[in-house]
């Protein structure tokens, strides 16, 4: 049996490692996507005071600390059964929209976008942000840097720090914002709406205008018919900060919505002995292995699944694009994973529009941003949408509010099974007997998981989608016969 190892050589297996086994005929027999790192937050948070969780769990991931900060703050609210003042909730959400704006921008322009803008077969050295700048102009590079700065600035104004914010506590926030800060955020928001629309236009021109790319998006290689998951508000519109989790079957039927505290009825996690990361699946459907379809509990949680799981967007411009998205791709739900990139840009526009909405909310500068908890602390669950999937924090405490049990299902983890399946399918479709495994082909395998924007950052801390790869092809005795390398 031949073996191909795709290894992120920079940290050896630090980010994740793909083993592709070939059978006697030189075709793909099986693939394994391994996550080789563990830190154990569920253990060492025990004994800590629950108000520190927004600070401790930040350190799970420096790419999306805001998501953990928010999830932890909401779970701590729930532990104390305290409802923060509405201004505090709006400020937290505003911080979160600033973060989404930065994060989605980064992914599209620096990580996922280059595959499309430059093309999957472009030389490695061009498949990056600099390549994009060369192709579409220097001005856009400046805009991307500006977009990142602006989003982080909103985080810093409300959260106190750019990375690892510190202001959310049980019952609200440690501080509000001033009128000057509000004005600044509003201006950023208006700029952000323009930027998001510009990005959608760019996508339309470069990707949708190119038949080859559209065929690639719509083709079978990158298609999986699994359940879709996403947080929705009371109108079933996409929401990142609060609401219920909607679950939609591969045929589009909504099988239900669950509140955070009901999550254990809906989601379970499977342990495999060959990797450190667990595989979540829909408990009501059951684990049937790494397979598609209505009988398999595999689901995905990404911008695309959020659009599938909702009935629309809560802001007008994003809603227009939502409608266009489904009209172009043939109705709901969309299963072609590469459409995640487009869905991400629609979310980018929603985040930007929502920044303006929140920043112009008359209540947003209220100094009343904290309610002192009155109840005895006990147990709480919260859910937010991290950019890379539904994020669940579940805490139990003693009566002093010291943690006795912690359970975390982090964004990307939700997608571990579907990513594994996407890799296998792409490998099977692209590696055939006699095929030379060249760089472009490997990149197309890698595109299968880059679409999910996998931040094994939460598990292994690579920047989303950054996976330098090494491929070793071994003969039946396990001797390497060829080594290929690439960086993406």
């Amino acid at each position, binding site marked *: *049996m031949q073996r191909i190892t795709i290894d992120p*050589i*920079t*940290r*050896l297996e*630090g980010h994740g490692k793909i083993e592709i*086994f070939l059978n006697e005929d030189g075709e793909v*027999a*099986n693939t*394994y996507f391994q996550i*080789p*790192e*563990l830190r*154990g937050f*569920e*253990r*060492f948070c025990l004994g800590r*005071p629950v*108000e520190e969780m927004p600070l*401790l769990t930040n*350190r*799970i*991931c*420096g790419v999306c600390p805001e998501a953990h900060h928010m999830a932890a703050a909401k779970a*701590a609210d729930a532990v104390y059964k*305290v409802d923060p003042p509405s201004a505090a909730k709006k400020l937290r959400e505003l911080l979160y929209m600033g973060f989404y704006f930065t994060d989605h921008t980064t992914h599209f322009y620096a990580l996922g976008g280059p595959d499309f803008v430059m093309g999957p077969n472009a030389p490695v050295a061009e498949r990056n942000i600099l390549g994009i700048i060369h192709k579409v102009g220097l001005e856009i590079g400046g805009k991307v840097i500006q977009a990142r*700065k602006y989003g*982080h600035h909103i985080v810093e104004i409300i959260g*106190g*720090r*750019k*990375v*690892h914010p*510190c*202001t959310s*506590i049980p*019952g609200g926030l*440690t501080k509000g914002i001033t009128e000057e800060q509000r004005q600044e955020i509003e201006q950023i928001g208006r700029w952000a709406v323009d930027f998001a629309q510009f990005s959608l236009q760019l996508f339309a021109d470069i990707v949708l205008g190119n038949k080859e790319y559209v065929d690639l998006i719509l083709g079978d290689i990158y298609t999986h018919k699994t359940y879709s998951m996403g947080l929705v508000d009371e109108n079933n519109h996409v929401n990142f900060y609060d609401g219920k989790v909607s679950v939609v079957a591969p045929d589009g039927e909504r099988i239900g919505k669950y509140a955070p505290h009901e999550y*254990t009825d809906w*989601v*379970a*996690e*499977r*342990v*495999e002995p*060959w990797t*450190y990361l*667990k595989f979540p699946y829909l408990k009501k459907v059951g684990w049937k292995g790494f397979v598609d379809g209505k009988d398999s509990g595999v689901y995905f949680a990404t911008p695309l699944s959020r659009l599938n799981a909702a009935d629309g967007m809560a802001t007008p411009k994003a809603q227009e694009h939502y409608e266009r998205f489904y009209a172009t791709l043939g109705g709901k739900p969309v299963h072609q994973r590469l459409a995640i990139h487009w869905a991400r840009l629609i979310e980018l526009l929603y985040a930007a529009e929502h920044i303006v909405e929140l920043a112009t909310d008359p209540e947003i500068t209220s100094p009343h941003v904290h309610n*002192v908890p009155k109840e005895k602390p006990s147990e709480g669950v919260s859910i937010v949408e991290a950019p890379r999937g539904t994020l669940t924090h*579940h805490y139990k405490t003693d009566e002093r509010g*010291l943690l006795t*049990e*912690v*359970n975390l299902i982090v964004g990307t983890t939700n997608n571990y099974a579907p990513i594994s399946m996407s890799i296998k399918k792409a490998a099977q479709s692209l590696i055939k007997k006699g095929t030379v495994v060249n760089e472009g082909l490997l990149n197309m395998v890698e595109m299968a998981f880059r679409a999910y924007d996998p931040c094994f*950052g939460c598990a292994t*801390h690579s*920047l989303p989608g*950054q996976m*330098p790869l090494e491929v070793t092809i071994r003969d039946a005795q396990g001797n390497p016969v060829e080594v290929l*390398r690439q960086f993406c």
Partner: protein
Amino acid sequence: MTTNGKPKFAMYWAASCGGCEIAVLNIGEKILDVDANFEVAFWPVAMDAKYKDVEAMEDGAILLTLFNGGIRNEENAEIARLLRRKSQILVAFGSCACEGCIPGLANLSKPQDVLDTVYSTVSTDNPNAVRPQYHYQMPEGVIHIPTFYPVLKTLDQVVDVDYYMPGCPPESHQIAAVIDLVIKVLHGEAQLPAKGATIGAGNSTVCDDCPRARNVKLIKKFVRIQDVPELDPHLCLLEQGVPCNGPATRNGCGALCPQAGAQCIGCYGPAEGVIDYGARLITAFASVIDSNDPAEIERILDGIPDPAGQFYRFNLAGSLLRAAKPAWQGKL
């Protein structure tokens, strides 16, 4: 590997959260100065990462390596040793590499308990108590994952370190200042600090940078931040009873958290000259307590709900303790 005559720069992440990398990316245009003055030889986040090329380099071929993340498994340690050999200047960059950071709190537990907890949580369906295996026989062949170390180690517990750059993550303006300094050194306009020095930070405490007024008012009990109806925005948090780590923590961030109404949790590590962070903080806390009676001081200190976390939150792995007894019972 092509050389262009410029000195080589490297940056690497071990068991980190990625926040250090984000902090470096956040220096914005300054990154162009790095590009102008260095050949970026190895930096997974930013460029084609040629691990094998690093192996092939002569020892000492890299001038400057910023190493972030703690040493959680054998692979982290292996790369630390490689980069030490290849680098003239190795900087422990960020709290994880310097002192272990939050993941170092795992050193309070037995490694087996860490694994048992993670693979038996309430949502985990694991009736056969499956645990990850370092070598596992699949039908198609054996596959591997790296060995989990009994405790998390700091970089200098594995290799010799030249400089320490604290912070979780280091603030971008400090990173920019360090880059400026190194460039000046390259041009012969400045000297490197003595080996073992802390760079990119101040020489006193967060309190020194904190604009909150300290009146040395004395407190009767510690309070938890969520229990205070309204904190005085201008008065020292510690004097309002909130256990702020400012007095033991090195300055460098500009006292960001207290200015945002939150207590310092100590991410810049021990202040200059502090050998035991926890001991220093206890002394500082004791000094604001309104009592001379040791028993009463003790009782008031008991109001701190989680002493291990409070006093060793970021620096347990790098402290004199390094780990609690259960973890030590594993092999170090």
